């Protein structure tokens, strides 16, 4: 087994708090939510297991040490443990689905098969679910723009359906720049430039002078 401290990227002398922070940061990085519908899910899951194991073993080791040292009380295990809970599962929602076969193909990762069936549906009988599933197929292929269009169409045809809405919202969220990229409306902390600095100093000088003191003697 790998050195659990190395897995978490902390030194052996790190405090419990530091270890917890490192664990949390890594757990966020590999969190399965990011990898739903992705071919990388398996690898992310492995990493997640690795850091879970590492964290558990460090906690166990330290607990043992503390018991033998008999200095502190028992260590409180406060971490919640992350793992796979809610992977997107196509088919769970809609029992009356007309596309059960397509959903099971998508779940099994057989995207080409799912696409073939969907393409066989004549244009006039394509309903909201068809657009949602087609969008899912496109999304898994990486065709993000088309996927978004299809999810949008599905939400328009059936605004009440939470499954379609979720998919569309996720697409929009990815495009917003909050998950990486650039958002023109997000204020960037630019700090202060030299102009701000001078202004601040002059202001401070004025304030000082009001109170009878002086900050910048020449003005």
């Amino acid at each position, binding site marked *: 087994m790998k050195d659990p401290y190395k897995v978490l990227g902390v030194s052996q002398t790190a405090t419990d708090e530091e270890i917890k922070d490192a664990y949390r940061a890594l757990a966020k990085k590999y969190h399965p939510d990011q990898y739903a519908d*992705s071919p990388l899910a398996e690898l992310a899951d492995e990493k997640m297991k690795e850091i879970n194991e590492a964290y558990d073993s460090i906690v166990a080791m330290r607990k043992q040490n503390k018991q033998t040292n008999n200095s502190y009380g028992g260590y409180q295990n406060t971490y919640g443990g992350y793992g796979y809970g809610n992977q997107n599962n196509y088919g769970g929602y809609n029992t009356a689905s007309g596309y059960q076969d397509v959903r099971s193909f998508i779940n099994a990762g057989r995207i080409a098969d799912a696409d073939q069936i969907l393409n066989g549906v004549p244009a006039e009988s394509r309903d909201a679910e068809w657009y949602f599933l087609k969008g899912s197929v496109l999304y898994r292929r990486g065709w*993000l*723009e088309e996927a978004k269009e299809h999810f949008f169409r599905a939400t328009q045809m059936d605004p009440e359906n939470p499954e379609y809405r979720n998919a569309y919202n996720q697409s929009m969220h990815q495009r917003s*720049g909050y998950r990486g*990229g650039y958002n023109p409306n997000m204020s960037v902390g630019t700090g202060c430039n030299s102009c701000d600095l001078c202004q601040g100093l002059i202001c401070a000088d004025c304030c000082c002078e009001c109170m009878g003191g002086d900050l910048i003697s020449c003005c």
Partner: protein
Amino acid sequence: MFGYVRPLKGELKVNEYDEYKAVYCTLCKAISKNYGRLQSFFLSFDLTFYVLLSLNEGFKEENKCANHGKCIFNPLKKCTYIFEKEDIYKKAAALTVIMSYGKLKDNLFDEKGAKKIAYKLLKSLCSKAYKKAAEDFPFIDEAINKMLQSQAEAEKNNMHLDACCEPTANMLREICMDLASDDMNKTVLGTIAYFLGRWIYTMDAADDLEDDLKNKSFNPLIKKFSLENSETIPEEKRSFIENECNAALNGNISMMLPALNLLNNGRYSGIINNIISLGLPEMQREIIFLHVTKKQRKKEDKKEKH
């Protein structure tokens, strides 16, 4: 290629910046050494990123031997060259040569008049280097040719944006998957490269939209925004188009970042992270919102290059 894939310099550590420059200069030298000095003019930031990815993959140990030497282009400037893994640099050099030759062929097809003659001349000057590179790495040549072919097909059929991105994305995926040390890394590198390819193509389309409208050249965004009958971007639509292009680019970055988390922690992880999570968004800001033109960028780059 296009020079869109570069780090955000201000956020690099000083040693990372030096390392980036050294890789850049070493690639330049490798191109010149293997395929002739003329080819070094095609040196790009994008291919530097490719070298970083491949060096990051296999080699954790630090056993590089840096040497200082004269810059090929500017005798007054000193460059740092790293002598290691020459095969990787050679591969990147070949990729540079083959890609730029492909782009030349493409330009030759598009242009008319005096420019066409200039491109023809340049193409004949480059053909020897191209042949050598294609011989050295036939799989790269094959991948690029496949890309050019399917690109031309997609453009001929006036396909939508996603389909037009596909050739570039697939080509990059194929070439980068070749760098992986095992199967798992193949998926990770493949995912990053695929969405990077999509990002690059979309960025290029957004960057060229104005020119393409004027020259009536193909651009997938013309169809997307129904601009078939206009010669410039209509003012009332401009901000919508900018935001849509930016959103499409963001979508690709949001797919790259999770894959980036799974990339092996290697020597250049810091720089690679910087490029994808900061460098690409910065390009979006500069090109889409600040309208920094290609000419201005070239000028800026010249100050840095050579």
